[in-house]
Each structure stands twice: as structure tokens, then as C-alpha cells.
């Protein structure tokens, strides 16, 4: 992984985040006028958005956002924070878009408009190597799982009859699994691979992989004011897809291409 502070990128100094305007009017026009698009992400979710050893903000989402900004002819300004804060900031107009591997989900669509998907992420049911009870989603019935509170995985697990607890972040779910406190955790397939890169010795396996992949999109505020922005982003994503940029970035960060629906 190498640093990727491209020319058109501006690493956000978090202490003085410029804010998107809340004033009436078209958001895309405002972004063009400002010359930058404010992108919110957690910065603590490898390999989507995280800090490398030299403390540069990197990841698939980071580079996708930069590429989009380039297409829009503006610079990308990144703001990092906690999940709930990112959502609140998006609603409050502090940030223009959130690029953070967000699943497109009907409930979320009530609050936000999403771009077209730019990645497809299958959900993995992760267990310890010793566990042979769980081989299908149906096997989750009555099992203990833990998932990050803010994710949609909890709902999926609940749907299949698992007993679900929540924790604040991803790492805690692996700790819970390894200490035998839970039977399984649901997470993005890619996240599992990344964790295994850091902990090759960890006795964890993917027990089940969902057939259907979740579609990952970019949420933004609902309504007229973002219509033009959404269209511009969709165009940019389409172009990036055609140019092979998305595939390239996906290979770079995930070791495989998840930018296309398989």
C-alpha cells in the first residue's frame, strides 16, 4: 500500500473542517463554486477507508471519491468521524456525500438518496475453524452473533433467528468470536480477508457466503437540491467503470474486482 495523496487531493485538517453550505440551492452548483466536495468517512475501516503506516488516509473509498471529484472538476476534502456523526453531518449539511462502503438499503433510502452502486459486497458468516454447526444462513437459528451496531448485518442475522448483540466496532466482533463468547459474526467478505492479512494465524473461517451481494452506494441528502449532484456522480461512476478505474482500485485494495455485479 502506498500513499496516494494525489494532486487533486487535499488531506483534510480535521480541526478546521470547512462545511458544506446549508443554504437553498443546487448542491452541485455550490460544490463547483467552492471547488471542492466534502466527503465523509470513518477512516477506521480497512481496506475501505483507513490510515496506512505513514498515517495517510487511504482505501478503496478514498480513491473512488478522489476519482469522482476529479470527474466533477473539483477537489475532494475528507472528513473523518464516527458513524452516527457522519450520518448526522450529512443531514445537517456539513458534508456533501458519504463514501464509506454504505449498503443501499430500503430503510436508508427513506432518509438519503443513493448513487448507483460502485461496489458489490457479499456478506460472510464468519466462525471459528472448529465450528461445524453453521453451514447455511438458516443454521443461524438460535445462535449467538454480534455485529457492529450501525451495520445492516444485525438485521440480517435477526431475520434468520440469531440472537444478536451489538458492539461499537468491527474488531470487537472478532475478539468476541475468538474468545468463544459468540458463535458467529456477519460482516463483509472483504473485511474478513483484510483481517486475515493482519492475523494469518487467526483460526477463523467463512462459514457461509450470501448468494446475493449487497450493493454499495454513496448516500447524500434527499431532494431536489442533490438531484444534479447524484446524476453527475452516477455519470462519473459509469465512466470510471468503463475506463476500468474501479476495477483497478478494487484489485489494488481487495485483491479482486468487486466493482462489478457478479
Amino acid at each position, binding site marked *: 500500500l502506498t500513499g496516494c495523496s494525489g494532486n487533486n487531493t487535499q488531506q483534510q485538517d480535521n480541526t478546521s473542517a470547512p462545511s458544506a453550505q446549508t443554504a437553498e440551492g443546487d448542491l452541485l452548483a455550490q460544490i463547483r463554486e467552492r471547488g471542492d466536495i466534502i466527503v465523509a468517512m470513518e477512516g477506521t475501516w480497512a481496506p475501505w477507508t483507513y490510515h496506512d503506516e505513514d498515517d495517510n488516509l487511504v482505501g478503496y473509498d478514498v480513491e473512488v471519491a478522489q476519482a469522482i471529484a476529479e470527474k466533477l472538476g473539483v477537489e475532494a476534502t475528507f472528513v473523518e468521524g464516527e458513524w452516527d456523526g457522519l450520518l448526522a453531518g450529512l443531514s445537517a449539511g456539513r458534508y456533501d456525500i458519504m463514501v464509506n462502503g454504505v449498503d443501499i438499503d430500503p*430503510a436508508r433510502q427513506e432518509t438519503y438518496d443513493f448513487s448507483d452502486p460502485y461496489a458489490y459486497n457479499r456478506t460472510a458468516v464468519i466462525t471459528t475453524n472448529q465450528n461445524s454447526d453453521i453451514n447455511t444462513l438458516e443454521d443461524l437459528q438460535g445462535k449467538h452473533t454480534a455485529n457492529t451496531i450501525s451495520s445492516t448485518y444485525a438485521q440480517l442475522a435477526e431475520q434468520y433467528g440469531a440472537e444478536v448483540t*451489538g458492539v461499537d466496532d468491527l474488531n470487537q466482533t472478532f475478539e468476541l468470536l475468538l474468545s*468463544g463468547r459468540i458463535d458467529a459474526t456477519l460482516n463483509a467478505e472483504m473485511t474478513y480477508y483484510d483481517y486475515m492479512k493482519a492475523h494469518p494465524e487467526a483460526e477463523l473461517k467463512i462459514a457461509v457466503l450470501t448468494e446475493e451481494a449487497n450493493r454499495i452506494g454513496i448516500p447524500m441528502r434527499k431532494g431536489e437540491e442533490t438531484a444534479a449532484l447524484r446524476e453527475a456522480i452516477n455519470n462519473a461512476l459509469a465512466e470510471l467503470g468503463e475506463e476500468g478505474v474501479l476495477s483497478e482500485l478494487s484489485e489494488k485494495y481487495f485483491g479482486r474486482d468487486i466493482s462489478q455485479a457478479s
Partner: protein
Amino acid sequence: MSERLWDILVDSFGKIILPGLTMTIPLTVISFTFALILAIAAAMVQFADIKGLKQVARFYIWVVRGTPLLVQLFVIFYGLPNLGIVIDPFPAAVIVFSVNEGAYCAETIRAALESVPAGQLEAGYCAGMSYLQTMRRIILPQAMRTAFPPLSNSLIAMVKDTSLAANITVTEMFMVTQRIVARTYEPLALYIEVGLIYLLFSTVLTKLQRIGEKKLNAHGKQGG
């Protein structure tokens, strides 16, 4: 406010207040009770200047007050299993909150013990009572009266700190709120809602504090 948002808030009120009553409040009350016991012990060994134990108490207070609660939760819940000690979430939370709050309360109680005039202990001796008898029947009751308001404050603050238990899978009020946020994507409104519920709990506790203080003050301030 949109109708949808209103519905979400109404719908979630019951969902949030329920774990508040069944988890946040019990967790707080149980932990605070243990914290008080720990605190009294830690304050007493310092006050009595018991060599060895006093140093243990100082060390305990130093480490616990110096490190974040979240780190303490991590060490107990995610760290101890490495040593083969696996504690369930609720007891783990009770342990950590008791130990943490105990350190702060110990300082409060120590200060209160020191504020009881030395003559009270001496009068106990001269009445033929032992150190422990005098402490239990004369000094501690007076100290607890002095410590009552700051301890009430700590209790009120603790109600909110228990939300950190979400980190070790305890489904308390704040975690439930965050789950609803994960589904509805309305963090601000829901945070305000849970904030108001916390305020409700605190208000009840504050009222209880006032009543308690009145009762303790029934026979005037301990001036003479």
C-alpha cells in the same frame, strides 16, 4: 418535523426507555452499590493509615482514575479471556463500573472522613470504644452525611457513563438508540430523544437527592 420522523420518535420511545429501566438503571444501581463498598474500604485503609493496604488503595485509585473507562472495559472483557478468564457481559460491566466509580468515590469519602473533627474519634476512645467501633458508629455516619451530595453527583454522572457498556455487548439504552439510528438514519433526533430520557432519569435522581439531603439535615447542620 416530518410525519415519518415523528413516527420514528414515538415508536422508538418505548424501545429506548425499556432497556433504560431494565438495564441502564439496574446496572447503575448495582454497580454504584459495589462502588460504595469498595470506596469505603479504600477510604478507610487510607484514613486509618494501614501500612501496605494504604499503598494498595493509593495504587488502585491512581491507575483507575488515570485510565479511560473504555480501556478498563476492554481489558476486563477482551483481555482477560487471554488468561482463560471469560466473564459474561453484564457481570463484566458491573465489575468495571464498580471498580471505576469506586476509585472516584473513595476520594470523596476520604475527604469527608478527614473533615470529621479529630475530637469525635478521641471522644469515642475516651468512651471506651475501639477504633473500629468508633469508625462504624460515629465517624462514618458523619462522613457519609458530608459525602452525600458529591456522591449523588457521581451517581447521576454514572447513569450516563453506563452507555459505554455497549462496547462489551450490554444492550443498554444508548446502544438501542444507535441500533434504531442504524435502521432509520436519524441520529440527531434520536440522540435528542435519548438525551431527554437520560434527563428524566437524572431529574428523578436529583429529586431523590434533595429528599435525602433534607432528611439528613433534619436535625440541622452538623455544626456543634
